[in-house]
């Protein structure tokens, strides 16, 4: 077990290195430099000024050297100064925005797991009856429809038709509701689908029949015997779920004006803000890789049949 954890943790290093390298190459393999004027048709900087700027930011060095310098600094948590927000370091911006994204993501994930499990159980217990149809259609819509489209519908419904929640912002818990729901619907749908399928399988299994035969109540059968076993395949989904919530947050954060990392990422993309882009991608990547590891360990802890 311990060996397995160490081996998996060590695998994080090459994975992150590969991600950093791919990102670095893609960013630098293309024409256009951050020293070019941002606005179209604006006066270009004089060659001397460009040279000076390149020196300050280290852009004049050969690419392998730039990459090595970046890696060395990144290992110490220093991602340099943002090209777009010139007075702030990337680390500062991340420190400010990452907690916001993390809160939004955690809220959405919690809602997705709780809601998805509830919908899945309802659908399995009342198979082919109304609850089943309600939960399956909700799951299908959540999975199929992109979250920025869902956001539009939710804003129309719950901000205009029934003015319950604001259209954006991030000041009070009331502002959290719509972004969280929007972000949660897709993973919730996936969890509901899987829970339904694995619950249906477990409900028909022999040990459930035995539990019933012993005279256990319906509630105990469903929650103590069926759900525990049905939950295991659902746990494997949590890894990809983190990724879905992470990338989904770009759109949700920009629609609902949430000051999180996703919104900064989109802005840094158009501004060719190399340090910012590298930092955000690596942060996401590291976070996802760690979460995948946690999920795998959790999987083993939940199911004693799995050994490493």
């Amino acid at each position, binding site marked *: 077990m311990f060996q397995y954890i160490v081996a998996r943790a060590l695998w994080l290093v090459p*994975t992150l290195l*590969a*991600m950093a390298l*791919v*990102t670095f190459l*893609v*960013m630098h*393999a*293309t024409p256009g430099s951050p020293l070019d004027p941002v606005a179209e048709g604006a006066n270009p900087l004089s060659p001397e000024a460009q040279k000076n700027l390149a020196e300050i930011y280290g852009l004049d060095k050969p690419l392998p050297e730039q990459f090595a310098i970046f890696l060395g600094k990144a290992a110490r948590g220093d991602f340099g100064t943002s090209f777009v927000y010139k007075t702030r370091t990337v680390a500062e911006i991340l420190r400010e925005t990452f907690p916001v994204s993390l809160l939004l993501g955690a809220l959405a994930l919690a809602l997705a797991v709780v809601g998805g499990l509830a919908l899945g159980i309802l659908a399995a217990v009342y198979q082919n009856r109304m609850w089943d149809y309600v939960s399956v259609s909700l799951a*299908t*819509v959540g*999975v*199929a*429809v*992109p979250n*920025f*489209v869902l*956001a*539009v*519908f939710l*804003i*129309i419904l719950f901000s*205009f038709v029934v003015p319950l929640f604001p*259209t954006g912002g991030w000041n009070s818990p009331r502002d959290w509701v719509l972004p969280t729901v929007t972000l949660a619907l897709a993973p919730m749908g996936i969890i509901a689908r899987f829970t339904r399928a694995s619950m249906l399988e477990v409900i028909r299994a022999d040990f459930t029949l035995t539990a019933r035969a012993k005279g256990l109540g319906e509630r105990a059968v469903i929650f103590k015997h069926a759900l525990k076993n049905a939950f295991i395949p659902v746990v494997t989904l949590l890894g990809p779920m983190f*990724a879905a919530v*992470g*990338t989904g947050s*770009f*759109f949700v954060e*920009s*629609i609902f004006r949430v000051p999180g990392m996703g919104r900064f990422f*989109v802005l840094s*993309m*158009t501004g*060719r803000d190399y340090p910012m*882009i590298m930092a955000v*991608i690596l942060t*996401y*990547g590291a976070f*996802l*890789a760690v979460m*995948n590891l946690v999920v795998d360990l959790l999987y083993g802890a939940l199911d004693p049949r799995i050994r490493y």
Partner: protein
Amino acid sequence: MALSTPASGIKLGGGLRPPSDTSPQERLRGQSPRSNESGEAARSSNLWRDGLRRLRKNRLAMAGGVVILLLCLVAVFADVLAPLPYTKTNFGRLNEAPSREFPLGTDQVGRDLLSRMIYGARVSMLVGLGAQIIVVLIGVPIGALSGYLGGRADICLTRFIDVMYAFPRLLFVILVMSALGAGLTNIFIAIGLTGWVGIARQTRAQVLAIKEKEFVDGARALGAGFGRLLTRHILPNALTPIVVSVTFGIPEAIFTEAALSFIGVGINPPTPSWGQMVGEGQQYIRSYWHLCVFPSIAIAITMLSFTFFGDGVRDALDPKLK
């Protein structure tokens, strides 16, 4: 389609068209036994025709199919259907709500929203189908070769796939797009570069399983070469999961284009794209709701139709997977 001459039908690419197209070829392929299929499929002797029959019975899937067909027609005949050119501005009539003259209203520069929506269908369908073709052309050969050859090449590929999987897909597409710049061709490239991984993995797994079967050994014993084995014997039998993965890949590509255009790194502006219309329109949602609501509805309907159809295809082709 059933009338096409037998010889013209035997091509690998042909198998990737909808199931109905492949039936004549399947019959010809009698020498590659389908003993590996479940008993049910073996009895009816033709997996694809069998699947088509099951698909026809699935009402939700058929409804999805009909909507997809309509969308394709709209995309093809956009020039005829659109009441106005999509670039025609009218600065006297900005942001108008739906009326008799402009059934879906006008946008920020007075362009007819209905016309832009119709041309938007063209972009969506083009990206959905075109990107999938690229994905298949890259992913299937790589996956098949890696599975068939094994060894060091295979190890390299699986490692590479692992790293690609650690990368959130959309993040990578956005990265590639921001590097290449906006534009339809670049969307194809970005989706192709990132999308082949999944299908290569599928193909590899299938080829790995099939290459050990007796009929492959038999064909090899009869002197079939490497290329012939792969294209005539192994791949045709690996086609089912590939077809399923393509049906799900299409809506994913459409979603990716819409998402890219939404944040402004997708289609170049004068060309209308639903995603870009939602992205621009949602900023004015309070004052001009119609700007983002209609394209949103279009995206939702398209995605749902493809999902229903894809679910239907999967269930029809693989009765075990439900």
